[in-house]
């Protein structure tokens, strides 16, 4: 388990509850109920902190939405200022990987934003450095709190700090034109994957079988996790044999050219850009690309999504998504909470996320909306959440150093810098050395 007092569900707990829930849930109702499998409902009560709509003041929000998807954050803000027209919201862009460092540096000077929009794996370190303010009292007064399952709540020492209004995870995108041309289907298990890639590579059409992230960063770890966990890897139990099986798979793809070696320098955004060119059959990437895909690919080629192939031990998929946090040094905590409440915790706000970036709403009462259930691109992700979702950051954020070890070795295997067996040995030893500290 992660940081002291963290109430993140372990992957095992999550999967156990998923298994119980999945059998009885229909697809329409399954998503939120799955995530809620762990969470009890609380009776609704009125919020005692709602500021007056005529409140004046300023609110600073730190986010990392780049130019491509900043409209979503702007739309959240418009939603908020519709109710609080006299509040001046300042959106400040901070690059994703820089946000934890900047936040901690700001905390040293007892400053920082009023609200953070952040969904990375460094929340535990940020909490320990005193970056966040507890939202527990607001949460207890929040009318809709029962709509949110425990799986999307981040607690430290039994206090609520962050809430994810929606979840993001990785799936398998495919270029349907290429698949039709070659005559293959999206693979369902890891045994099928290499054979499918081989057929694409040998079709004589110069198609690249797959694009995915091989960066030695948390994005690489995110991408590697489904394959590693599919063979039975977990951070508390870094089984070397399981790691070697997963690394052997990706090693073969890289050696045979199924996965371009340049993937080691691609982040998730670059992976999408590369796939969107039109000559790559598959891409491991997230549901947040649904919006960009419709804007950038349009009718250039037909595409779809499928669940990532499962391994012998099924495997998990990190449940990401951006959470909202109140800054520890805010002078306007009520307004900060109001921003959270009006944007990513509200149905309207979550519909913005769903329509613009494909984020899957976590609210129970949105699981049956046609926007969620009738989108064929979203459906595989909804199924994945239901069947294979696992907590992110893993182990409540206690595995940051171990995640870095995984990402570096994942990257090294793709680059051909290490053999699968050497990387597996280094990973198992590195995770043991870093996770248990």
């Amino acid at each position, binding site marked *: 388990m992660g940081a002291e007092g963290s109430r993140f569900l372990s992957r095992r707990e999550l999967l156990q509850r998923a298994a119980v829930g999945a059998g009885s849930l229909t697809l329409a109702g399954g998503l939120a109920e799955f995530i809620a499998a762990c969470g009890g409902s609380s009776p609704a009560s009125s919020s005692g902190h709602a500021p007056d709509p005529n409140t004046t003041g300023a609110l600073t929000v730190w986010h990392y939405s780049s130019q491509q998807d900043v409209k979503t954050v702007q739309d959240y803000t418009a939603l908020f200022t519709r109710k609080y027209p006299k509040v001046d919201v300042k959106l400040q862009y901070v690059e994703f990987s820089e946000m934890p*460092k900047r936040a*901690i540096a700001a*905390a*040293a000077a007892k400053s920082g934003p009023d609200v953070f929009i952040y969904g990375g794996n*460094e929340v*535990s*370190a*940020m909490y*320990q*450095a*005193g970056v966040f303010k507890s939202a527990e009292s607001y949460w207890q007064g929040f009318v809709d709190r029962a709509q949110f399952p425990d799986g999307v709540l981040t607690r430290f020492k039994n206090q609520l700090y962050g809430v994810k209004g929606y979840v993001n995870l990785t799936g398998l995108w495919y270029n349907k034109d290429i698949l039709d041309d070659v005559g293959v289907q999206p693979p369902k298990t890891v045994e099928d994957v290499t054979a499918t890639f081989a057929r694409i590579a040998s079709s004589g059409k110069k198609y690249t079988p797959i694009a995915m992230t*091989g*960066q*030695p*960063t948390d994005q690489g770890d995110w991408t590697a996790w489904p394959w590693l966990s599919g063979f039975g890897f977990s951070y508390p139990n870094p089984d070397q044999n399981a790691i070697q099986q997963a690394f052997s798979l990706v090693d073969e793809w890289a050696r045979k050219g199924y996965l*371009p*070696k*340049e993937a*080691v*320098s691609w982040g998730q955004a670059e992976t999408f850009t590369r796939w969107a060119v039109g000559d790559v059959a598959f891409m491991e990437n997230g549901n947040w690309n649904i919006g960009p895909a419709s804007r950038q690919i349009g009718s250039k080629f037909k595409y779809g999504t499928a669940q990532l192939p499962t391994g012998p031990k099924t495997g998990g998929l990190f449940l990401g998504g951006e959470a909202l946090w109140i800054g520890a040094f805010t002078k306007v905590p009520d307004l900060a909470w109001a921003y959270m409440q009006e944007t990513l915790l509200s149905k309207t706000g979550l519909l913005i996320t769903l329509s613009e970036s494909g984020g899957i709403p976590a609210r129970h009462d949105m699981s049956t909306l046609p926007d969620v259930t009738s989108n064929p691109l979203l459906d595989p992700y909804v199924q994945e959440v239901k069947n294979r979702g696992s907590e992110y950051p893993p182990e409540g954020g206690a595995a*940051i*150093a171990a995640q*870095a070890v995984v990402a*570096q*070795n994942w*990257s*090294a295997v*793709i*680059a*051909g*810098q*290490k053999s699968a067996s050497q990387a597996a040995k280094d990973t198992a030893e590195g995770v043991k050395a870093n996770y248990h500290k």
Partner: protein
Amino acid sequence: MRETFARGTVRRTVPRSRRRPLRVRAEWLFLLPAALFLATLAAYPFVELVHMSVSQVTAANIFHDWPFVGASGLQAVAATADFREAALDTVIYVTLVVGVGLVGGLASAVMLWRGGRIAGFTLALMVFGWALPGLINGTAWRFLLDKRGMVDTVLGLFHVAPVYWLVDNRLPLVSVALVNAWVAVPFATLVYRAALLDLPKDVLASADVDGARPWQVLRYIVLPLLRPCTLVLAVVSLVYAFKSFDFIYIMTFGGPGTASTTLPFLSYRLAFELYKYSDGAAVALVTVLVVLVLAVIYIRQVGREERG
């Protein structure tokens, strides 16, 4: 009161006990801005760095008391495989940046020695490349060295198979070092060219009269005369290369795996990616100490130059 001047004129004298303290105080006053600047931006951070490197600091206690652990933290970090690999990578990186920077700078300076419009234009272009932020240069080169980038496209015209500049084994380290050297060359060119223009004309003219060939002039006259300049430039380039961080951050992020992780990058990763602040500080301290040694050499060399 009597006044005497050095050349036999009268100079105003004041009692010795009063005069010297006044002079000392005035000197210190002039030094004060620079001293304050250095104390705030160099000495204090350095003291904090040393303090952090001998303490146990994580995200949980970064703003609280730091338990003292002495040199054990430094020893533990130095014993890791990551540190050894990063140290080796740093040596390779520094050697390439300094070597290519100096040789390239000298070659460019000799070619641009005579001046003229083309030389001026070339020099301006080089300075432009040197003046660009590392972020811009690094990003541009990352695209240029991509498999579908311009470098491989041009090589492809000559039937050269794509080279995985930023991917294959040790090649990423070499590629980033060469890009860094590419940025270092213009600076070396400027310095060498200034030194070349300052060479005694009569010596060069004598060599010409004696029938020395161009390479002989270069080998036996120019290079020996440029030796002091080369030494200073080498030390400055060593310091620059040793603390280089931006190109690695932008182009490879230390990867693939850890293939291009140098000591400064390892320090960054430990402190700001893994929140092992004291480990990061220990690695940074090693880097700073090496740079300090080089700085002392530089200062001594400059002192020698000034003394003639």
